[in-house]
């Protein structure tokens, strides 16, 4: 039973994390190759503040705040660059983050921080908290999608120049996407730290950034249900199929490639092609 509870918690945190990236990359069209950084910021904030004696629940908003604030700064910086430059810049932010953590003893350095805990909740309680947070975030995403913000994001993702001619302050919307998405990643990070009770620089590196991107892409960029399903499946895959454990990255990499090569719309794209093969499906709006 313990095993199932732990697995469900892991899956739930992955889904939350993937949804947070989906907001930036899926909704607003801003590609990020360094999203694990914000998972890391959330995790480190809660770990350090927890060690300093702050109660777990009080650290959650602070994790979100710092992750979101740094996310907004990164967003601000990336306003200066576009598309391909943005991908490489966000990747750089990821390497910078890991590089800084590695060299700082007070952040645990190479060894990381262990013995995090004291959420004060039972394992089941913590799982419920994770599930609840994830459900809330999924609901928020659906709400945003249906709101005017979602419509603007959609337009920015497709053609930001035209959006500006329609009077949309594109930079501010991009910043909003970065701030919300990274704050949610911070929440995921805080949960992650308390779930595993250990964090280190390698938990938040480029591979993790690509992994979460692969969840979004495999689910179908922008599709909330698609991303939820893909993140849940991909995070559980290594646990369900023990033999995959050793080939986890091979599977991820291969999936990512095959998905883009044969179905750039991800699972959501596959589904809609399957159910209405004639219409060239339009996402979101109808």
């Amino acid at each position, binding site marked *: 039973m313990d095993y199932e509870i732990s697995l469900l918690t892991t899956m739930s945190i992955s889904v939350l994390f993937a949804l947070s990236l989906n907001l930036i990359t899926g909704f607003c069209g801003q590609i990020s190759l360094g999203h694990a950084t914000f998972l890391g910021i959330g995790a480190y904030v809660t770990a350090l503040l927890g060690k300093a004696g702050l109660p777990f629940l009080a650290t959650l908003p602070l994790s979100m705040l710092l992750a979101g604030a740094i996310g907004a700064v990164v967003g601000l910086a990336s306003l200066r660059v576009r598309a391909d430059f943005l991908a490489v810049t966000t990747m750089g932010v990821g390497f910078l983050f890991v590089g800084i953590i590695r060299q700082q003893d007070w952040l645990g350095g190479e060894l990381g921080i262990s013995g995090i805990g004291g959420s004060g909740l039972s394992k089941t309680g913590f799982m419920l908290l994770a599930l609840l947070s994830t459900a809330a975030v999924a609901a928020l995403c659906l*709400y*945003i999608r*249906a*709101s*005017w*913000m979602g*419509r*603007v994001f*959609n*337009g920015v993702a*497709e*053609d930001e*120049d*035209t959006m*500006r*001619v*329609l*009077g*949309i*302050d*594109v930079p*501010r*919307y991009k*910043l*909003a996407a970065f701030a919300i998405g990274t704050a949610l990643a911070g929440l995921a990070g805080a949960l992650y730290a308390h779930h595993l009770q250990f964090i280190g620089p390698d938990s938040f590196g480029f591979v993790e950034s690509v992994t979460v991107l692969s969840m979004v892409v495999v689910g179908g960029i922008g599709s909330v249900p698609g991303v939820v399903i893909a993140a849940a499946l991909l995070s559980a895959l290594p646990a369900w199929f023990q033999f995959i454990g050793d080939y986890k990255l091979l599977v991820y990499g291969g999936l990512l490639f095959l998905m883009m090569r044969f179905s750039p719309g991800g699972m959501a794209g596959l589904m809609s092609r399957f159910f209405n093969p004639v219409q*060239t499906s*339009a*996402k*979101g*709006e*109808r």
Partner: protein
Amino acid sequence: MNMTDQAVAPLLRIADVTVRFGGLTAIDRVSFDVHPGELLGLIGPNGAGKTTMMRSITGVVRTTAGGVELDGVRLDGMPIERRIRCGLSLSQQLVKPFRGMSLLANVALAAGSAKTSSPLKSLLHLSRREELAVAREMLERVGIAQHAEQNPAIQPLGILKRLEMARALALRPRVLLLDEPLAGLNSKEANALSSTIQDINRQGVTIVLIEHNLGEVMRICSRLVVLDNGRKIAEGAPRVVMNDPAVRAAYLGGDTLASAAADQSDTTTACAALGGQHA
């Protein structure tokens, strides 16, 4: 300059605008005023710099020198979206509809500008009822309401041009800038749409119209500004401008100038000839 010019302050003032792309001077110290309520035609041969002029007014293209004022407010240095929110609106020559949504949703997105002025505001609004109603009205106005639910990806140019115009109208601008709205339409459709443009103008929207269909331009514009090679070569009442030898030269090319001017004393036939060449 006549009396009315001095009597009313211009709504849009273009002062000595120059635009360079690298070595090419696309606009060379062009000045003109747009008066409140007028329908100004901006014409000139291909490559004259008309589109560039429009794009520099809206800030899509940076001016190298000179200034643009809307109702006494200097627009220079403002980003595009702020100029739009000051009351400008641009219907572009190259149409770029959002392909992921229906024509109606395209126009509704523009109609929602009050709800999208800031991210926070946009987050607090869900309903699109009013905007859809406005969008439908705009589509009706430009005559493509029957295509409202369709995807722009499958539409011909004529419909997309009108979609572009409906989107610009949905912003409820004070000055509407139209870049070749009649392109891709047959003569009956063009006639209907230019009458619509005239109606919109009569309802109080100031309009700057770029158009190669000179017949329609002559029919609806109250005044013309002519560009050639990035320079303003004439300005004034349509009939006067059309008889200006410099304008004829620009349209017909240097050599044919004399004979063309001699043959055609009647302005309307001259216009038909010019229109025929460049439509």
